[in-house]
């Protein structure tokens, strides 16, 4: 076994590590560990022994301390990943609405199981727990951007598109990027792609209650932004 090498991380990555550490109070640099792990994943596509060693070196921790944290969290991958992480929600609601069938068919078509990557290195498949979009179920995400109301056929087409180099637009969220690019955003760096932050209109389900209220002219009565704030502290001072 060869010793982990941290020279795979460039000066740019080291500069970013310093930026991350500077976000936290003096002496509390361990708080930077989660974003640092996202950072090393953005370079290598997973948290490798090199990545663990790099985090340990930057934060003054042991590799065991870093490894214990890295292995706890689902989003840190322990093997090389594909460009696109396809996560299918199979928690109860999406499951009964058809999410399990979506996962099963994708798994069969791609020839990979949970947390496995296709041979061409394009897609890593996983079944995910609740992705907080139950009103759009069943959902899947590609690098954590949403494709809503998916069917097995739709998911198979999506996978075929991704494998052929296309980047279909998510139903909500920004245009797709690679998992490495996404991991850099998770490390706390702005999405620099022109227009990406503006992508993704609110979906119909999100707005349903609001549109109903608007249609019928309903809003809570008596809202006056000039209502004074009572100042009991002044009374007490008197």
């Amino acid at each position, binding site marked *: 076994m060869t010793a982990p090498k941290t020279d795979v991380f460039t000066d740019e990555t080291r500069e970013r590590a310093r930026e991350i550490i500077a976000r936290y109070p003096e002496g509390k640099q361990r708080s930077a560990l989660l974003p640092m792990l996202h950072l090393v994943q953005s370079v290598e596509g997973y948290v490798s022994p090199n990545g663990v060693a790099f985090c340990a070196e930057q934060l003054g921790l042991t590799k065991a301390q870093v490894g214990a944290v890295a292995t706890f*969290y689902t989003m840190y991958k322990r093997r090389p990943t594909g460009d696109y992480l396809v996560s299918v929600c199979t928690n109860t609601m999406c499951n009964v609405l058809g999410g399990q069938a979506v996962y099963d068919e994708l798994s069969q078509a791609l020839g990979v199981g949970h947390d496995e990557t296709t041979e061409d290195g394009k897609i890593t498949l996983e079944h995910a727990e609740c992705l907080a979009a139950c009103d759009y179920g069943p959902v899947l995400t590609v690098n954590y951007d949403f494709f809503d109301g998916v069917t097995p056929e739709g998911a198979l087409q999506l996978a075929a598109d991704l494998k052929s180099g296309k980047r279909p637009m998510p139903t909500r969220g920004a245009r797709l990027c690679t998992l490495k690019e996404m991991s850099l955003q998770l490390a706390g760096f702005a999405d620099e792609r022109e227009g990406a932050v503006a992508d993704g209109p609110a979906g119909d389900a*999100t707005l349903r209650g609001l549109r109903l209220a608007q249609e019928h002219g309903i809003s809570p009565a008596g809202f006056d932004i000039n209502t004074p704030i*009572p100042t009991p502290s002044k009374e007490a001072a008197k």
Partner: protein
Amino acid sequence: MTTPSKAVLEKLTPVLTKRWLSPDAWRLDVYERLDGYAALRKALAVHPDDLIALIKDSGLRGRGGAGFPTGLKWGFIPQNDGKPHYLVVNADEGEPGTCKDLPLMTHDPHSLVEGVIIASYAIRANRAYIYIRGEAVHAARRLRHAVQEAYKAGYLGKNILGTGYDLDLVVHSGAGAYICGEETALLDSLEGFRGQPRLRPPFPATHGLYASPTVVNNVGTIASVPYIVLGGAAWWKTMGTEKSSGPMIYSLSGRIKNPGQYECSMGITLRELIELAGGMQDGHQLRFWTPGGSSTPLLAAEHIDTAMDFESVAAAGSILGTTATQIFSDQDCPVYATYRWLEFYHHESCGKCTPCREGNYWMVRVYRRILSGEGTLEDLDTLLDTAGNILGRSFCGLGDGATSSVTSSLQYFKQDYLDYIEGRTAPKLSAAALAGAH
């Protein structure tokens, strides 16, 4: 589609959700045109204690599930203690069924940022963190953008709006762990450790982040603050009930015609919510539902008229939770639903305490056996016994929550279990699911 009756429509109270209709409200200039940062100016002009008093007066209760009075929580922070104080926003939305905080942060991120500044000023914190679920990437993009804009405009950083008040705000992405929605696990995670809950006491109010006084509040709680500052406590209390004041975002999913987010006066009933959502889907009849996520005991069709406020849902034997209202029909199986939730709790158990780690592991296996047609009557006792040994004996609420659907589904739908065990229902899982089981 039938239109809901006027009486039901009038229970809609768009407050926190209102700006979502303006497609660019996530931009600072649009937010400012829609009353944005007006509350901050008002708040910074009064003494912090007056803000705590205002929030106490409003009766605002935490929107993250527990419903703890927010003003009281803020008031627990010791003042003049010479320690740094912290505000930490719990944006780790992950309770199955819950989907209210992500749209809020995506479509109206500045309302959360503004709430953070006001709350931090009230508790005298100069640093605040938003711990956002890792998977919530688009919400995080918008939120980070909003924070950047707020710094540039002088709403964050040094000497905010010339008042001498300083605040730094960091958006910190998690990495995929449901347990980090538990406030002390969240704090451990934010400190760079595994997200495992801490023993309480001491509570975060005195020993929170970096062992300093810390308020941990949910996204919806903090985003409510600017509206209370603008409209006043009395206005806030015109919505909801006496003990559960204000509007609440009800997240409706499942077998209804129009799933989605419905912000209503607290205390609306499920019957009324279903009416707002266009009724049940054709061919589906309400059979069971969660009032506030999978950690809240299931309720049955007979509870359709329960008022969805903290007290009434508790009186019906469940918990209001996050108002994640998942609606299941006669075509859904409560045994299978519970099994899938348990798989979730088993996966998400942090492993720190034995009842939760081992109990969920074994309950999943018992469910697999029942759903494969291999169950025995004794299995039902085993489930109740195991659940009873997790509830109240776990380190944190995750363990308690895991037992909710087990005991409630056995209470209301025991016949469904018996039908699998006695061969009247065809097995839902193949024997392969038992592979590796002991």
